[in-house]
């Protein structure tokens, strides 16, 4: 079948290879090819949405390894959400990157790995079992390393080293959990009701411990505190990479892995029986609050966004730990909502860096004069993250709060509200100082940033509004489907 997920993984690999064949100075063909490949991937993935909404699922086993291990793919709702989100945002990121990278060195290397990372992300999204997920998870870490060290400065190398150590430690933990659980439970094929229910009675302690091992493993990528420190360091990467790391691919694969472990390996009933989710909820709540407080202390724009990401990712995991349908709807829809809002913020940050060179917040005073539209997009996205209507962030917050009530844990709702207040404390002053203080900036001549950077940002900002206003036609149907399957 044409829309087999297999092609979505294969196309970017081939495309990355083609890009690598082009010469460094062949910018035109390379940019066109990169954009084409990401659009092609999206158009392969997009038809899966109506497919899964009708209740159908596709399965495909690529390689059978002995002992029940196999590399297998499956098109099912949660994976489709992630795949469509990632491949859609990839198009915008690639277009943006063609503008952002136009004066950078090593563009060939950059775009090769940028496109290859898409393949790994699609692999993660469509994995049918934990083993396949693990393979693509590691593959993604390797592919993104050259992107993190792109600047090749001492700072970039040390950030890259940190990144790779964290990633492999993360992989090792996942691997440990993978084999232990496979030994106990047999099949690790994802199922919306979990696969460990029958094994819990005999191996209660081990299964509980392995839960935390696996969560710690994926928690590294999901930047769960205290495993987050690679993320702010990785900010030395070029902004399209930061946007990719933060909004779309890497951190979200971590969260995605956590959701897979919690609901598709353990299952809601097993989690309730073990009671491990409550402990995780405490850790995540602390992570949200501490990250938000640390965000206030950051003086660099991108670092502030990085800490904000840590806090926002916590929302998703927190929604999962509530073990209530509403909470999970909130968590999963926040994958989409946070991706849209945060990628806009990073695109704005990148535009500011390339156009004015301002990287620190105190250099951004009065920048609203030089980049009025960019700062307007920034303002909208940041109030969206605070949870103001009608931008998309309020939807997740609404369901997360409902979920905390449904789970009988209103305290988690207060964590979210506190975090929203902290969000406003670290976002609003940026906007106010950009527009209402005197700076050394002049009005722009013509468009305030290159069109390839300006328009993706503008379009995504519009998406942030549309996804908020028309949530019932965009995110919610499929998210509801995922949640109904899990809580059937």
């Amino acid at each position, binding site marked *: 079948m044409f829309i087999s997920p297999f092609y979505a993984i294969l196309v970017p690999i081939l495309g990355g290879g083609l890009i690598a064949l082009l010469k460094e100075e062949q910018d035109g063909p390379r940019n066109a090819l990169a954009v084409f490949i990401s659009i092609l991937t999206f158009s392969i993935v997009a038809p899966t949405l109506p497919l899964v909404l009708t209740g159908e699922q596709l399965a495909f086993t690529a390689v059978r390894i002995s002992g029940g291990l196999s590399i297998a793919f499956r098109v099912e709702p949660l994976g489709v959400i992630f795949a469509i989100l990632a491949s859609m945002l990839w198009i915008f990121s690639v277009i943006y990157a063609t503008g952002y990278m136009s004066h950078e060195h090593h563009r060939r290397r950059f775009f090769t790995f940028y496109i290859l990372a898409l393949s790994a992300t699609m692999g993660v999204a469509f994995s049918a079992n934990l083993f396949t997920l693990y393979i693509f998870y590691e593959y993604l870490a390797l592919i993104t390393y050259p992107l993190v060290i792109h600047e090749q400065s001492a700072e970039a190398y040390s950030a890259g080293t940190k990144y790779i150590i964290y990633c492999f430690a993360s992989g090792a933990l996942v691997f440990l959990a993978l084999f232990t659980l496979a030994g106990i439970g047999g099949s690790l094929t994802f199922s919306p009701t979990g696969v460990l229910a029958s094994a819990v009675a005999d191996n209660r302690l081990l299964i509980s411990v392995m839960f935390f091992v696996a969560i710690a493993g994926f928690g590294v990528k999901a930047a769960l505190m205290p495993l987050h420190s690679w993320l702010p360091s990785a900010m030395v990467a070029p902004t399209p990479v930061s946007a990719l790391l933060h909004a779309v691919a890497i951190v979200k694969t971590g969260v995605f892995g956590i959701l897979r472990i919690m609901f598709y390996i353990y299952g809601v009933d097993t989690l309730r029986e073990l009671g491990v989710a409550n402990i995780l909820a405490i850790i995540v709540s602390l992570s949200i609050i501490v990250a938000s407080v640390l965000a206030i202390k950051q003086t660099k724009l991108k670092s502030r966004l990085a800490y904000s990401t840590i806090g926002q990712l916590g929302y998703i995991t927190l929604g999962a730990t509530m073990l209530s349908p509403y909470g999970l709807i909130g968590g999963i829809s926040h994958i989409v909502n946070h991706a849209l809002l945060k990628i806009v913020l990073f695109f704005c940050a990148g535009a500011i860096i390339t156009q004015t060179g301002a990287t620190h917040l105190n250099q951004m005073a009065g920048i609203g004069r030089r980049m009025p539209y960019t700062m307007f997009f920034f303002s909208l996205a940041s109030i969206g993250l605070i949870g103001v209507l009608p931008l998309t962030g309020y*939807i997740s917050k609404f369901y997360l*709060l409902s979920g905390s*009530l449904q789970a009988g844990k209103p305290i988690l709702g207060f964590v979210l509200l506190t975090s*929203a207040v902290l969000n406003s404390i670290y976002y*609003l002053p940026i906007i*106010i100082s950009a527009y209402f203080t005197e700076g050394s900036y002049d009005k722009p001549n013509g468009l305030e940033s290159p069109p390839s950077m300006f328009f993706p940002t503008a379009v995504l900002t519009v998406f942030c509004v549309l996804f908020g206003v028309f949530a019932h036609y965009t995110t919610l149907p499929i998210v509801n489907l995922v949640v109904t399957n899990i809580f059937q």
Partner: protein
Amino acid sequence: MHHLPAVSVLLPFLFAIMIILFSRRVIVIKVLAVVGSFVSLAVVAAMFPALMSGETLGTGIPYLTFPLPISFRADSLSIFLALILSFCYLLATIYSLGYMGHSHAPERYYSLLVASQGAIVGVFMAYSLIGLFLFFEIMAVLSFLLVIHEEDEPAMFSGSKYLFMTVGAGLAVFFGLVVTYYLAGRLDFVPGGYITQSSPYAAYALFAFLAGFGLKAGMFPFHIWLPDAHPAAPAPVSALLSGCMIKTGAYGIIRVIHFVYGLDVVRAISFDRVLMVLAVITILLGSALAMQQDHLKRRLAYSSVAQIGYVLLGISLLTERAMFGALFHIFSHALMKGTLFLCAGAIITQTGKKYISQLAGIGYQMPVVMISFTIAAVTMVGIPPFNAFISKWHLAVASLETGQSALVALLVLSSLLNAVYYFPIVINAFFSNENKSVKTSFIRDEVPASMIWTTALMALLCVGFAFIYPNWPVIAASNIASAIF
């Protein structure tokens, strides 16, 4: 007819966009602003028959899809408040033509002003909590931008204070509506309410609403943004903030306790008691602090705190008569506080004086403005036959009816305090002996005509409505109150 509520909300936004698009010439901006404000008022006024007949207008077509559709509908309460406040908006917009004559960024100012009219009408017309919240947030952002229009140090400081507090208020309301949605699975308004089971969650929600809407209304202990933000804004904006925007908080409380939660729930968790205590403190504290202010606009702002206390007190008594008093006080306070702030703006425009102690003999330099000021101040004190007398009278009677005779003493005391902090300004303006050098013959006000006429008209209406027969605000307010109970 049934499309009017949606049209009245969307029109001002449309005009705001047009102002931004055609911002080349200042005159075009001004014309568009006045026309936009007027057209919106006219659309609201076209709903007047429904106000009198008690009909609910609206198509029920949903505009947003989450989590329950937002459709624009208007019952008498919505139309009543929208009509009064749109009228104040029109006067303030016309006043701005003179006051903001040479101000910077006219396109920003007028587009925000017109858009905020749309937002405030939207608060009243969006017939569900989620719609109310949406426009509440839009209004908060727009009014923040209006407060900081001058972009000077005090404006930025008080604007930021306002912004952060209003974000907090928004989150409190958000929490309240999530809990409500969780309890009932709906967020629309139904007379009499639909949550009739008292529960801890209902209490959380109601007190979250109290905090959120109370902050907007300037209720103690959340009033602290108000005395900074109102004086820092340009005078027409101060008039609108004090006259109109804080009323949306009171409106929110009315909607929540009469249209979402049943009165049994409200009584069971002693929401009304808490509101009453806070209202009493708000009245006393506002009056006491108003007396200490020498800055004219700050005194007016604290006076607003005290006056909103009356409205909240009327709501908290939970009787028909008290509700009538509260609604009518919303109406009369909008006019009188509007007048007072417009006068303060005129004084600043002509003389640059901001402090009460500098205003000796000003009545001779600005007779029309100061006579308007006097009328509004007298109204504020509640001397019959002026507007506020009617609301205070009914509040007092309602207090007696509910057995709260102490509240009558409070109302009398507070009227006395009103007199103490308003009359010296008036006396000083006309009968000052301290400074012999000031002229004692009347000269003409030297502020632009658009400011004089709007101020005078508003002052006249403070008195006028007590005499015009039939007095529709009285009829409308009493209809609404009897419909609620």
